[in-house]
């Protein structure tokens, strides 16, 4: 059995840290997306071949997904019994995204480390002094959880009824 650890546990306080720090990113979102891909291609140049020449749609997808992630982490605790549509469920959406990355783009597990490093670098650069150790820790945990979920995408079974992008993200992208 693989070694057990709890490095990805996210507390309620850390969810609030994620939400508050994201609120600081929103006004500079386009710049942040530029920085993210610039840094990603510096760390892993071969990743550039996975994307088309025009990166604008991809940047919109990235921002929509990040917004979805932040929103999905932030729900009132007392509503835990309420059903949530599969297309709005963070786990199912990210699992499907990971499955697509594995099946269609043959993304290696190691590439998730590059994506994580680029994301933290972007937040550090974009947030400046607001990128405290607390913020870094919260985003590191969230990204660790999401990357593990995406890696598990290759274990996903079923008819893929959950699309790879959340309903909200699809609306934002199609409306743009």
């Amino acid at each position, binding site marked *: 059995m693989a070694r057990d650890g709890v490095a990805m546990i*996210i507390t309620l306080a850390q969810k609030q840290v994620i939400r508050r720090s994201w609120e600081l990113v929103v006004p500079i979102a386009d710049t942040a997306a530029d920085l993210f891909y610039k840094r990603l291609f510096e760390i892993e140049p071969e990743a550039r071949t996975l994307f088309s020449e025009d990166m604008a749609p991809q940047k919109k997808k990235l921002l929509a997904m990040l917004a979805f992630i932040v929103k999905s982490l932030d*729900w009132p605790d007392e509503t835990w019994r309420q059903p949530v549509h599969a297309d709005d469920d963070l786990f199912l959406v990210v699992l499907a995204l990971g499955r697509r990355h594995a099946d269609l783009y043959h993304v290696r597990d190691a590439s998730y480390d590059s994506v994580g490093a680029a994301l933290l670098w972007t937040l550090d650069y974009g947030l400046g002094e607001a990128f405290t150790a607390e913020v870094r820790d919260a985003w590191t945990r969230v990204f660790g959880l999401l990357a593990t979920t995406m890696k598990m995408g290759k*274990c996903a079974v079923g008819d893929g009824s959950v699309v790879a992008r959340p309903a909200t993200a699809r609306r934002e992208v199609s409306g743009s």
Partner: protein
Amino acid sequence: MSETSVVMRGSLDEFSLADVLQVIGMSRQYTAVQLQTDDGREYGTVWIKAGRVIGARSSSAQGRHAFVDLFGPGAAVFVVHRLPEPKAYPDPLGPLNTMLMEAIEAATAPRKVVPLPPPPVKALQRPRPSRAASTAPPPPPPRVVGATATSTAQSGIAVAIASPKGGVGKTTITLNLAFSLAQRGVRTLVVDADINGDVMSLLAARDRVERGAYDILGSPHELPSVIRSTVIPELSILPACGPNLPALATARRSLADEWGALLAEARRMAALVLVDCPAGMFDVTADVLASCTHAVGVLQSELVASRSSAMLERGIAAIPAERRPRLLGVVVNMFQGRSEASLEAFHAITSADAAPLFETTIPRSEAFAEACLGGVPVRFARQRGQAPPVSWLFDMLATEVCDRTGLGGPATERAIGSFVA
């Protein structure tokens, strides 16, 4: 969704069970994670919804113990099922994060080397624990006692409230937490093990006490005649001692056996026994800890207290394994958001790789002094004619304690039931 469907299937060689559960904990779907052996036999199953463990089953147990069992060797494959939403959910066993940490700690405990502090000088003067004490069977596992349980045949749990340093607010936490638990319907008995700054002094009722815990150590059958009731039907108090200082209160020997017998009797009378320990992790506190099923640590959000926080776990680790209570978590008390020193201490405590913290943090507040002046729990203090906001934090803390122990039912459902009747 009306039917069960398989979402994911994989090998535990590639992904650890903790990773699988943490990922599933992110989902708000009703999900079952089934573990199978190499030859396809079921090893166990855990049901999860929105970060809560709804149920667990292993080959030999159900509930919280089964959840721990799942981390043992033998499982090879995980299968994740998405389930239809039921009409109603049972009370969860607990938050997934908390149960995960406890299960992994339990699974790795035999290999964990905990450095023990040097024995305190006083301990050298104390006789070694008797053979009967050292070979005593482990305390029974905590029972899940419902909020309305009334049978005295059932044994409740005993939770020691302890801290390495004095003056951090153990008595205040004990009293107000007990109040909130009792308000939830959990039959709660506060046992005062601290003769230095006792609960009855906090309640301005010291002069009304005739006898207390130290007077009946060694004769626990006298417990019912010494317990004091309160205006809250579900809350009662066993004071520390009467007007005269009993000889056992100053005894320089281990009282582990006496405390064990007294608290066993107390657990027969209440679903939850909260024991307010003296400052420090040794001497009387060690005796009480060895007689309790669980412990809660209290740390003050202040630098000296935060620097002594490691002693909390060391003190518990020094209890013989067969009598060691389970540490439910640590409450940070007297937090001051405007004080840099308090903030620094808070960060030091929360970032330490130590015991699990409770989500609820108690701030420093004038309301506690006002409550002490009136000799009441802080809920009865008044600020601008209303119960002080800080008093409601103890309801949140009580919820966390219930989640972590499996005690009690949802307060709101119970209240609505009473209202309709």
